[in-house]
C-alpha cells in the first residue's frame, strides 16, 4: 500500500505549481487554468484522506468542489470575454483598475 504522505506530497507539489503559475502568468486564461490546477491538487488530498480513513464524506466534498469549479469556469470565462471585448487584451496588467 502506498503511504498517505506520498499523495499529500504530490498534492502539495501540484498546489505550489498552481500558485507559482497564478503569480507568474499575465494572461487571464492561463491564470484561470492555474486556479483549476490548485483546485485539483486539493481534490487529490480529499480523495486520499477519504480512501485512507474509509469515509465517503471526502469524495462527496470533491463532488461539490467540482460543481463549484464548473460554476467558476462559466462565470470566470464570461468575465474574461467581457474584459476582452472592452479592452482588446487578455493581459491582467491592462485590467488593473476596476474602472471601465
Amino acid at each position, binding site marked *: *500500500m*502506498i*503511504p498517505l*504522505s*506520498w*499523495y499529500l*506530497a*504530490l498534492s*502539495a*507539489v*501540484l498546489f505550489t*505549481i*498552481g500558485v*507559482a*503559475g497564478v503569480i*507568474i*502568468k*499575465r*494572461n487571464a*486564461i*492561463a491564470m*484561470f*487554468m*492555474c486556479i*483549476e*490546477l490548485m483546485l*485539483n491538487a486539493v*481534490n*487529490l488530498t480529499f*480523495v*486520499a484522506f*477519504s*480512501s485512507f480513513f*474509509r*469515509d*465517503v*464524506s471526502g*469524495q*462527496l466534498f*470533491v*463532488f*461539490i468542489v*467540482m*460543481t*463549484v*469549479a*464548473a*460554476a467558476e*469556469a*462559466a*462565470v470566470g*470565462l*464570461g*468575465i*474574461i*470575454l*467581457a474584459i476582452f471585448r*472592452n479592452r482588446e487584451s*487578455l493581459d491582467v496588467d491592462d485590467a488593473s483598475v476596476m474602472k*471601465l
Partner: protein
Amino acid sequence: MFESITQIAPYIFFFLLAGLAIGSAIAVVAQRNPLYSAISLIGVFVALAGLYLTLAAPFIAVVQIIVYAGAIMVLVVFVIMLLNVETEDRRPLRLRSLVPIAVLLAAVLFAEAAFIFYFVNEAPAPPSPVATLNPSSVGLTASIGAGLFTTYLLPFEITSILILMALVGAMSLARRSAIRPTDVVVPGAAVLPRQTFEPARVGDATPVRADTTTEAAALSGLWDRAHEREDD
C-alpha cells in the same frame, strides 16, 4: 515472482501517474501559448483520474474525466479559440533585486515542508479510525449517491442554486450590451457635453441633461430618426 510483481505494481503506477501529473503541471505554467497550456492541463486531469483509481474511487475518477477534461476544458479551449489569443511575450523581470530574497524564502518554505513530512513519518501511527463502511464500497457510486441524498442533502441542493446563479451570471456577463462604452448616453442623471451628441459642434461643452431613455434618444437625435423610419 508473481507475488513481488503485485506488490511493486501500485508503486510503478503511482510514480508513472505522479510523474505525468507534475510534468504536465510544469508544462501548464511553462508554456507561453495558452492552447498548449490547456492541453497540458488535460494531461494533469487524466493523471489525477488515474490516481483516483489507485485510491479506489472510481466514481470520482470518471466524474473527473467527464466534468474537468470534458466540460470545463472544452469551455476553456472554446474561449481561447474565440478570442484568438496570441502567445505571451517574454518580459523583462521587474524588481530583479528581490530575486535573492525570493529564493531564500522558497528555501525556508521547502525546509519547513520537509521538516513536517519527516516528523509526521517518524511519529507513531495514530489508532486507525473505525471503519464506517465496508472498505470495498467507499468509492462506489451507490455509497456516494446515498451520502449525497441523505446526510449531505442540503449542500447538494445549495449547489443546484449555485449552478443556477452561475448560469444567469454568465449569460448576463456575456451579453453584448453588458458593459457599455463610456461615450454612449446612459439614462439617469448623466450629464454629458453637447459635443457628444452633435459632433459638428466641436468645442461646445454646454452640459445636456437626460433623465430617461427617450429623452436621451431625442437629445441625441436617435429618437426622431427611429420614428421617421417607422413612418416610412
